[in-house]
């Protein structure tokens, strides 16, 4: 078991920061890194749901002729009408033409029968509040293993206490999908740091802008959007406070003050990053594919999985643990 730290991961991934975007409780700091030039297929274009072979057994396929190796996004899930919806608890590699049966997938719709059918279809990423538990239950073969956590999340959101994730992903979708527009995916963007208030809650890095573009909407709407929605609904006044006017006496001063206040906001966010307690991760290698290595990271406040390619980080999905999310400081 090796060890690493959170912020040096960004250096290993050769990521640089863009300008912060903030809307309501959620802030996104775009990351820019090198493109792997087509070595990896995107999760929407290069990954197909082949079908379900019994509850908790989901088969994914990287179609023959696909543009590259597929890294299954951590906690990807699929929803279809009249079928038991499923989500994966871990990431994995799929070479072009390869099929992989996830026997440790979890059902996310407690009392719905029927199997997902093979399709190239939209996907979601599990909401942030479920991810730690889902990751800890990888390799555990029990299709109903996430229902209690889903039921708790539903209660937290004021919804009926059921193991039905579609209560959030589908019925709250008109609200959640607006996060895709509230935050813009920028040209060349390969990742993002997600903040709730001033607190870092997630780091997502993709091997290419194309890959990140395909995983962007599920991440911002369903993974981090659900957490932001919860915060915004619990304390609406805190996230819709009337704008403070600037004191400028003319247009030029106003422009200057606007730029200055933005710089201060960006600095404050970067400062909160620097001020974070040092986070050391235990690293467990889970899978290899030639030079690619899939590892699980476990830290005190964050957990997640990463993929490195010959030592360079190409994929990361690292997120705050439940205790960290519910600590008073996180609910800024």
């Amino acid at each position, binding site marked *: 078991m090796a060890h690493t730290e959170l912020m040096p991961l960004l250096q290993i991934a050769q990521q640089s920061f863009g*300008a*912060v*975007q*903030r*809307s*309501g409780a959620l802030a996104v700091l775009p990351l820019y890194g090198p493109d792997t030039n087509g070595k990896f297929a995107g999760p929407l274009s290069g990954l197909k749901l082949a079908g379900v072979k019994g509850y908790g057994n989901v088969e994914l396929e990287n179609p023959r002729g696909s543009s590259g190796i597929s890294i299954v996004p951590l906690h990807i899930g699929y929803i279809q009408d009249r079928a038991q919806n499923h989500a994966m608890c871990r990431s994995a590699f799929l070479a072009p033409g390869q099929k992989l049966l996830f026997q440790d997938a979890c059902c996310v719709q407690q009392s719905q029968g029927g199997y997902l059918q093979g399709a190239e279809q939209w996907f979601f990423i599990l909401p942030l509040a479920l991810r730690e538990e889902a990751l800890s239950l990888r390799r555990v073969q029990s299709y109903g293993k996430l229902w209690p956590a889903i039921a708790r999340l539903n209660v937290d959101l004021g919804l009926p206490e059921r193991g039905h994730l579609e209560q959030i992903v589908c019925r709250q979708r*008109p*609200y959640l999908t*607006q996060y*895709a*527009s*509230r*935050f*813009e*995916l*920028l*040209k060349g963007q390969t990742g993002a740091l997600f903040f709730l208030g001033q607190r870092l809650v997630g780091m997502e890095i993709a091997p290419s802008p194309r890959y990140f573009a395909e995983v962007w*909407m599920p991440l911002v709407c369903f993974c981090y959007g659900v957490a932001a929605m919860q915060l915004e609904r619990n304390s609406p006044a805190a996230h819709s406070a*009337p*704008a*403070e*006017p*600037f*004191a*400028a*006496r*003319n*247009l030029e*001063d*106003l*422009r200057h*003050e*606007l730029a200055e*206040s*933005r710089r201060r*906001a960006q600095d404050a966010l970067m400062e909160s990053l620097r001020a974070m307690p040092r986070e050391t991760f235990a690293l467990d290698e889970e899978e290899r594919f030639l030079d690619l290595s899939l590892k699980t990271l476990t830290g005190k406040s964050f957990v997640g999985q990463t993929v490195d390619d010959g030592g360079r980080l190409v994929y990361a999905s690292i997120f705050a643990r439940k205790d960290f999310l519910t600590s008073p400081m996180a609910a800024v």
Partner: protein
Amino acid sequence: MDMALLRRHLRCETTALVVGRKNTTIAWADETFHRQAFAQQPAWYALQAVAPEVQPGQRMRVLFQILESAQAGLSAETQQVVRRVARVLAVVMPADDVLTVFLALRRRRINRKPARRFMLDYLLNHPCLEDLALRRRPAWIDCLEHALGRDTARGALAILQRGKCNDPYVRRNLLRFAGDKDRAAKALISLCGSSRPAVMPRLPRYAVYHQRFEQVEQRSPRPKTVTATNRGDIAATLVHLYRGGPNEELSRAVDAYAEAACQLAPRFDGTVSLVLDVSGSTQGYGEREYCCVSQSVALHMVLKRCCATLHVHQVGGSGAPPRPEGSTDLASSVLDALADRPDVVMVISDGYENVRAGDLAGVVASLPTAGIAVPIVFCHSKFTEKDDLALRRPAPGLAELQFWHEDDFVDVLHEVFSMAGGDAGKRFVETSLKNVLDQREKEVMPWLTRN
């Protein structure tokens, strides 16, 4: 009084004006608002009610306000405009609404001569006088008694009931207000002498008469099922362009459609600064992909053809037509637009601000301190009329307009130009509203001409 605020109020405030049967006092929440607006700019205030899409309840309030107010201190020109508006409103509005306004005047004991003359003119010259008087008999008689004086009205009606149509008292005090005296006398005799017929058509004739004016105001029909390509020709063609890349035939067609749409649009001889949001979010996704940006670009194409000077500040996007990309920094672009010193700043956007949400609101709130009074209008580019704008209002303090179909452009442009400051804005409002009044007078041919 902010005229934009008044316009928004007249279009959006839907509370009905009700005069209860038993209540002796009547009041409505926005009465002071109307009174102040009339006191400040009576002609402009009155003209706003003639514009399309004003709520029926608001038209009733405007008519009440005009009739209630003393007009002696107004200039002759203003008095004339106000009277013309009152006449057009009375003809355009359903007769039941007009009677409600008259009853409100009665409850308030408003008996100024112009108001009483106006009421008598309406009651005795209505094209469906017989039907109206018969069906709304108590209200009609109440209004007549208020306008004429109770004793005079009852005396005249009693004489008429005895069949003395040419009695000098009746002629002098009642029938002189009627254009067709014989017809009015006949109607009044029948009103006094009989009760309601046992069988009457469900829809009163007087209501049918006024329906024709409602139809004039109705917007052209919109598609029941909205798709990417049935929201107007310009946007439809732009969607195809965005989907398929550059195409000469499509580009030519877009220009031709924009030229055609421009023929219907109002002209503005001032300066407009446009903030055009073409950021990544305007691309949309799924069946709405490219819909928002297409309609925004379509409005820009029409705008540039109908205003004398246009400065454009594009937020994100690249190419022609601009392909959506990049973040949404509306605040900086609005500051750039204000630096042009325009008569009005128009922001066309999907409403998602993300280079720090709240910056635009902060900038807008700071403008008075910075000494900037240029009006800013936020125009929401939507997919359908029913789009939820809850999270799409980056600066709630700004005047807002919405559009989703090409047929909305004329109204949007009219509103934007009306809000413009300076002489250009005033010229536009005065000319355009008077044009609307002229047009409405031609359409409805008011039979109320005696006041």
